[in-house]
């Protein structure tokens, strides 16, 4: 089944990119979920869409060839900085930053898209992902970003973990909460921009959170949860890409459905484990 993916260049690019985002999306997703920020990923993916639409508009109307990957990334990072600032402004209602940025992203997207007189098939690909959209250049960029993200998370792992668990305590201990938050949200923005080609705007947050939701049911401790999330994310991407390709379905859909299947299995596994334990103690 893998044969096609290794044979055709465009599929190979997609496949390797998929393997990378199968690592970085759940990696960042783990921190996002434990900090109860799942919706931030959605807000940022819609801002990324605005950036992509902007890039396509430039290309179509002004013949400026800027890969939408870059314009999407720029918008996403700017959006992430804005979210952090808004969260600082509305201390007691931090979640309000999310609808503000999300609707702003959608609004801008609509404007850019109509200014460009629409771009239907491309837009469809960006919304739901595509198996054939990753160019050689995109792949190199995403590979660079992935390595960067993994190194930074490795370096700041204990700080991010400590801050996620108990922000007040971390601040008292002298951690620079503000800068670490900013770093974290910018990394999140990069992951989203990198993932959108394959999973699509509407489903990128699912790849960040569903594998985490599944591993949360069965893992012991944070590190184990992190590793398991990546395993689940990887499984979802690989199975989703291959089945999407053979069934001619955008991979966003198949990846998310595989993720949901894994989530259901993990819930059942947990139930069985508890059931067995209870039976043992009864005997």
């Amino acid at each position: 089944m893998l044969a096609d993916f290794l044979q055709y260049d465009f599929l190979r690019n997609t496949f390797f990119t998929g393997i990378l985002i199968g690592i970085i999306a759940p990696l960042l997703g783990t921190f996002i979920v434990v900090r109860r920020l799942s919706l931030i990923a959605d807000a940022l993916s819609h801002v990324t869409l605005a950036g992509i639409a902007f890039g396509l508009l430039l290309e179509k109307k002004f013949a400026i060839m800027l890969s939408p990957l870059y314009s999407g990334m720029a918008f996403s990072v700017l959006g992430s900085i804005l979210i952090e600032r808004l969260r600082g402004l509305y201390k007691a209602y931090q979640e309000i930053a999310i609808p503000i940025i999300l609707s702003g992203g959608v609004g801008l997207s609509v404007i850019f898209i109509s200014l460009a007189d629409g771009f239907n098939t491309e837009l469809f690909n960006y919304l739901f992902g595509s198996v054939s959209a990753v160019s050689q250049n995109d792949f190199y960029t995403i590979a660079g970003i992935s390595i960067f993200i993994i190194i930074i998370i490795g370096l700041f792992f204990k700080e991010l973990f400590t801050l996620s668990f108990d922000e007040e305590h971390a601040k008292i201990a002298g951690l620079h909460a503000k800068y670490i938050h900013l770093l974290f949200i910018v990394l999140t923005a990069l992951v989203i921009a990198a993932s959108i080609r394959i999973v699509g705007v509407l489903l990128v947050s699912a790849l960040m959170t569903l594998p985490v939701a599944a591993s949360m049911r069965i893992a012991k401790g944070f590190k184990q949860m992190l590793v398991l999330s990546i395993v689940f994310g990887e499984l979802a991407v690989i199975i989703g890409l291959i089945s999407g390709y053979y069934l001619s379905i955008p991979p966003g859909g198949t990846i998310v459905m595989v993720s949901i299947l894994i989530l259901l299995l993990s819930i059942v596994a947990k139930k069985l484990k508890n059931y067995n334990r209870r039976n043992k103690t009864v005997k």
Partner: protein
Amino acid sequence: MTDVVVSMKNINFAYENKQVLENINFSIPSGSFLGLIGPNGGGKTTLIKLILGLIKPNSGSIALFDQPLDKFSAWDKIGFVSQKANTFNRGFPATVFEVVSMGLTAKVGYFKFFTKHHKEQIQQAIEQVGMQAYTYENIGNLSGGQQQRIFIARALVSDPQFLILDEPTVGVDHENVHRFYELLYQLNHEQNITMLMVSHDTGTMTEHATDIACLNKQLHFHGKPDEYHALTANDLSRIHGHNVNIVTHDH
């Protein structure tokens, strides 16, 4: 070597328009165990937040280890167990070991990793609070009192010289409260750690602390437990603003 761990001079503090602390002057000598008591809303937690630099006084000055608070940076000398610890996010997927390790994060510093030595320190702190059987258990699966002990281990792991505890025994059962005070006594006497502890359990507090302070907007009393016991019923009701026999544990 410093002789005074905390000193507060003419501290006033208000949340918006509500005056909470009025003209507070006091210091905590190194090696002492100060029990801070007072009614709900008396400003105890606020006082601790001021010491930790989480909020700024409207007037007055605070010094930690002889340094003005805004210049103080050796936060690893201070361990803190907050009143909120027992209402934290129970679902957080972290093992006891991982939670205690967080007490070392800032001390180890940026761009450095935990070494074998750090891991031994973490184990030791867990043993100190008698929780070694639960080292790899998820923190969410422990009882409230057990969790509280883990948070104490997190405060102890960085070898603090000054330990601040805001009602750490809420939710801890009777026998463990006793063990807990023994642990504090041992830390205070053998390792010479200075203590500031808030509790509504006046009886146990006067038994174990070397000094007692009563806070109700103003500092109404600061002295030895004997002196506190010598206070008349009249003094007490003035200090506490109500009948002292009422010991509240709910939050």
